[in-house]
């Protein structure tokens, strides 16, 4: 069956519809590129452009290259290109887009590797997100927030015990190159998957080596963490504009989860390179240089980014975004410009020391210089109780460590403090990619701080810890499940742990004789 169709009538309809089309809507405001180079275009015209508004520049071959306006001057605009500057020539036409930069956000991004504009970098096809989020967005206000109170376990005993991190906190990881800064962030991400916390990880690589990013992705895949991870990757090869945008894009993606009552953990690796990329852009835009040639607003650059990490109030859904910014220092100098800025913005820092790293203490966390300003309120009660004496013991050990070489000439009390300190230092060593759960951390800490391992030789401490954990895991499974909930350790639980620890310690102290 077919319906009668008159082609003439249809054609007539199209003709009359076209006749009614108004072409005046096609009039648009345009400007012209007067100079181009180093990723910056200088544009004449477009006097109505807004700050950080997206511009579209007509490239060669009819392609469009996006740029965003950063310098609005009396007679020209300085815009930073988001693509290659080789595609744009002087004299090219520039159009206003009427909007500021947005990136795709939503759960569809989980498991993907994207660039700062949300374009996929893996070979898993297009990302069909339903929403977009503003790259630059104001942080939640005072009333929308709640104080940090839930723990975000890193799985690293040294951190969870002494510098605990809470959900919504900003904890800086700072240290020289090759001291294991990224390793802490990666272990924390792995722990979220292992403990099934449901926290969505976002890893933002800023100007990193692509080989390093590939290695991290491969490791996360192997550990089964990619299923709850988004990677925003820029390499040292990318334009400074993309490196500058990366953390803001990552924050926009993390905010989706924060605003929907979920929890996210965002790692900025690293903000030193971010500041360097911004410095490059600013100098090319001829903004006046200040200290270390950074522009005047480098503090605001990081404060507005990190302020977006927050714990929201129950009215707002109670979601959170925790940030782990990373800063690389030169020769341990934490008083340089960018490190001091970020230290003052964040809620504490984990300081990595290369001398500790070289001594084989890994994670190479400096207990004296590391601090968590708000995490105490969020620390798991079980770990808090067990780790209470830890800081004090280690502090006393550090003061007395210099005397350790005198050996038997010391009084019994000093000797005991040194021996305890050596054992605790040994116990806090933890290999990469093996985060510990709450009960494993609590049991280890209880055994060590209560002195159950004092008779075990230092070189056997890790073996004794493993033996303790495997025995507790198999023989006292039920007790450990209760302990894993994180409630305060009661006396019965303590004696259970110490009972097993005593047996294990006996084995190892006898074995060494």
């Amino acid at each position, binding site marked *: 069956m077919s319906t009668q169709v008159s082609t003439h009538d249809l054609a007539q309809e199209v003709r009359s519809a076209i006749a009614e089309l108004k072409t005046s809507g096609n009039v648009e*405001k345009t*400007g012209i590129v007067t100079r181009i180079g180093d990723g910056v275009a200088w544009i004449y015209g477009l006097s109505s452009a807004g700050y950080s508004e997206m511009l579209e520049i007509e490239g060669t071959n009819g392609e469009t290259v996006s740029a965003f306006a950063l310098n609005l001057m009396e007679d020209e605009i300085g815009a930073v290109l988001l693509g290659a500057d080789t595609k744009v020539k002087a004299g090219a036409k520039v159009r206003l887009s009427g909007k500021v930069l947005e990136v795709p956000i939503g759960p569809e991004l989980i498991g993907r590797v994207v660039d700062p504009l949300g*374009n996929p970098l893996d070979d898993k096809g297009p990302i069909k997100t339903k929403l977009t989020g503003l790259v630059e967005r104001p942080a939640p206000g005072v009333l929308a927030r709640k104080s940090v109170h839930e723990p975000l376990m890193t799985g690293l005993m040294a951190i969870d015990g002494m510098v605990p991190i809470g959900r919504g906190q900003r904890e800086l990881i700072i240290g020289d190159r090759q001291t294991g800064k990224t390793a802490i962030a990666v272990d924390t991400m792995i722990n979220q998957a292992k403990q099934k916390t449901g926290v969505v990880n976002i890893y933002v690589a800023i100007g990193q080596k692509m080989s390093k990013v590939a290695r991290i992705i491969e490791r996360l895949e192997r550990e089964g963490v990619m299923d709850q991870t988004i990677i925003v990757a820029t390499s040292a090869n990318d334009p400074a504009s993309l490196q500058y945008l990366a953390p803001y894009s990552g924050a926009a993606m993390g905010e989706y989860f924060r605003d929907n009552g979920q929890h996210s953990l965002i790692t900025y690796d690293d903000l030193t390179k971010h500041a360097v990329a911004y410095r490059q852009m600013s100098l090319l835009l001829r903004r006046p240089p200040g200290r270390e040639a950074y522009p005047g607003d480098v503090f605001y650059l990081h404060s507005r980014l990190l302020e977006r990490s927050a714990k929201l109030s129950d009215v707002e859904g109670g979601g959170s975004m925790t940030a782990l910014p990373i800063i690389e220092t030169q020769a341990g100098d934490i008083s340089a410009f960018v490190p001091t800025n970020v230290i003052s913005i964040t809620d504490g820092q984990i300081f990595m020391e290369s001398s500790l790293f070289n001594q084989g203490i890994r994670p190479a966390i400096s207990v004296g210089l590391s601090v968590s300003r708000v995490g105490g309120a969020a620390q798991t009660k079980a770990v808090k109780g067990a780790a209470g004496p830890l800081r004090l013991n280690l502090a006393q050990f550090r003061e007395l460590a210099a005397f350790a070489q005198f050996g038997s000439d010391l009084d019994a009390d000093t000797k005991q403090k040194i021996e305890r300190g050596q054992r605790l230092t040994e116990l806090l060593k933890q290999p990469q990619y093996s985060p510990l759960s709450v009960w494993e951390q609590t049991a280890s800490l209880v055994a060590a701080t209560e002195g159950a391992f004092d008779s075990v030789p230092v070189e056997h401490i890790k073996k004794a810890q493993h033996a303790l954990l495997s025995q507790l895991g198999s023989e006292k499974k039920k007790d450990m499940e209760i302990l894993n909930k994180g409630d305060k350790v009661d006396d019965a639980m303590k004696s259970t742990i110490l009972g097993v620890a005593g047996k294990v310690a006996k084995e190892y102290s006898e074995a060494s004789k």
Partner: protein
Amino acid sequence: MNKITTNQLAVYAVEQLEKGVDAKDVALKIAASLLENRQSRELSKVMHAVEDELNRRGSSQVVITSAHQVSESVKKELAKLLGAKNPVFHERIDPSVIGGVKARAGESEIDLTVRGRLNRFKANIVNQDN
């Protein structure tokens, strides 16, 4: 000594032209000023600024680009669409636009060329691919 802005130069040029000074003389003076103040790379900006200044003073410079000669009525229609008063037309024949016409007066532009449409089409397809 303060830097002379391109806008100041443009206003000067237009005022001189209005006084009836020969265009060549004005161009020479502007060129000398740019060279003296090491602003020679701002020449193209000055040209645009002069155009803008003329537009502001009520004589719109309308640049029409098309593949073939355009009739007077089309030119007038384009000037009307762009809101140009007392238009002075500058025509450019450019076969690479393929067909249609585009016109610009100051910052306002209307692009009805086949090339422009193809470019927009291409940009849309590239965006969808992503």
